[in-house]
């Protein structure tokens, strides 16, 4: 770790990607993440990397497809409407088992929406988004520092499982500046080899084919079974979450990303008044921390969960499924970039606590 720097979220993720061994960026302008491509356009030439502004998000994601097929670490950053356009490509990338990293700096929607922080793309990110039976691995940082730390993991997971990884951020994390420390540079030469890559035969092997296509039903099922075996490993090995004050908590908040930060302020406030509240913050949205939520739901001490989102209820479905309806799961959400204030959330929690008694 080096010294602390005050850096904008969107720029920090660019630097973090470079340090994680990524030298290729393809993207298309969209607010609120334009600082990321601008940073990469300046920075990548300094490390012999490639920056290319594509003609559309559709083209950008397919450039990622080609670059990953050729065996290189590659990233794009975009925001909700742009990510929608990338769903076709993401489906092909998942089907062809290619490692890419895609950053979604989520803004308000649907449609043109607005450019304020939102969490309305949870379903799109976690439940597939594009056509077909596949998963993205989804990481949700809640600070600029965590965006940096998870970037390395994002590339490693993408390579390990040959699967697209999405970093689900939001406009607030992209636009804010925060004191951060960067890890050192990954030695690209020492990254695991990719013998499957279509990087040309070079007189060393027979041909490689990067492909998501098999006209024979029995063939396609085999391909998809292989992918789902991989997802089983992902669910077993890669769950990440943070627990705050859950050891004695009777009332558990569930929140991710920016919202979880606000909840931490709420917890301090409620704890100071003697209320036993805690937070479980999924860091991986897929794989979801199902077991940890179930364990809390099965604990007789825990009275209920309160899921808070910048949507009108998406992650709550996974919270309910994970807790197997063993405890009530309440919900509070704001929309359109209206961030809930700590007092507002405290009041919701206090009211629910009163009703539960």
């Amino acid at each position, binding site marked *: 770790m080096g010294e602390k720097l005050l850096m904008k979220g969107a720029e920090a993720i660019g630097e973090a990607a470079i340090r994680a061994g990524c030298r290729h960026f393809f993207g298309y302008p969209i607010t609120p993440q334009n600082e990321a491509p601008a940073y990469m356009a300046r920075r990548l030439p300094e490390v012999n990397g490639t920056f290319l502004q594509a003609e559309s998000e559709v083209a950008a994601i397919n450039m990622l497809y080609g670059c990953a097929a050729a065996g290189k670490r590659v990233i794009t950053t975009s925001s909700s409407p742009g990510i929608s356009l990338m769903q076709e490509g993401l489906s092909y990338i998942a089907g062809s088992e290619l490692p890419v990293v895609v950053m979604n700096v989520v803004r308000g929607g649907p449609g043109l929406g607005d450019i304020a922080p939102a969490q309305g793309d949870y379903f799109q990110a976690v439940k597939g988004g594009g056509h077909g039976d596949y998963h993205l691995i989804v990481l949700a940082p809640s600070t600029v520092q965590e965006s940096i730390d998870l970037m390395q993991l994002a590339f490693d997971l993408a390579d390990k499982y040959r699967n697209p990884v999405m970093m689900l951020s939001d406009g*607030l994390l992209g636009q804010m500046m925060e004191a951060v420390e960067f890890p050192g540079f990954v030695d690209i030469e020492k990254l695991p080899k990719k013998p499957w890559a279509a990087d040309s035969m070079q007189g060393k092997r027979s041909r490689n084919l990067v492909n998501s296509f098999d006209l024979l039903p029995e063939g396609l099922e085999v391909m998809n079974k292989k992918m789902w075996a991989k997802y089983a490993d992902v669910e077993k090995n890669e769950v990440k979450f943070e627990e705050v004050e859950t050891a004695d908590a009777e009332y558990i908040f569930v929140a991710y990303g920016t919202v979880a930060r606000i909840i931490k302020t709420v917890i301090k406030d409620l704890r100071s008044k003697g209320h036993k509240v805690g937070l479980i913050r999924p860091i991986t949205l897929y794989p979801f921390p199902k077991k940890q939520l179930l364990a809390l739901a099965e604990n007789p001490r825990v009275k209920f969960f309160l899921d808070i989102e910048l949507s009108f209820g998406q992650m709550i479905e996974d919270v309910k499924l994970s807790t197997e309806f063993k405890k009530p799961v309440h919900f509070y959400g704001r929309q359109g970039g209206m961030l809930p204030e700590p007092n507002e959330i405290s009041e919701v929690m206090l009211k629910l606590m009163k009703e539960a008694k």
Partner: protein
Amino acid sequence: MAQHELVAAGFGGQGIMMLGKLFAEAGVLEGNYATFLPSYGPAMRGGTANCAIVISNEPIASPVLPHPKVCVVMNLPSLKTFEPLVAPGGILIINSSLIKEKAKRTDIKTIYVPANEIAEKAGMTKAANIVILGIVVKATGAVKVESTKEAIKQTLGEAKAKYLPINLQVLDAGLNFDING
């Protein structure tokens, strides 16, 4: 160290963002955690600009400050918007060069600073934001004067190093202002 909070607001072009960044940067130079959250989008062009800064020696929970402990307002619309939001017992710093109205609240400390006049007298008309930075540093004690000067030096960089002495002069003018007067 308590958590220090600042919201600064004014017209675009008054150097509001720079004021906030310098404050946060000074905090970082002392090894603290800091967040700087700008208002952005359409608000960046022509309208009001504001930013929220948190400095702490512990990891910062929410960077959003609905009720900041310290608030700077550089124009009248910002006074109207932010006066009601300041935390009870907090500080409201008002640029009295541009705001002729007085604050109504009695449960907060108000500091009236003729920042434009002070900046002009100190030799740089446009640097009212640096005067206010001096006031913020003095009123909060969140960061040291030396760190603030270093933040200004680093932000100007070598390309604009010639503006450093005048900026420091303006900062000193702010620091010398009697905030209890």
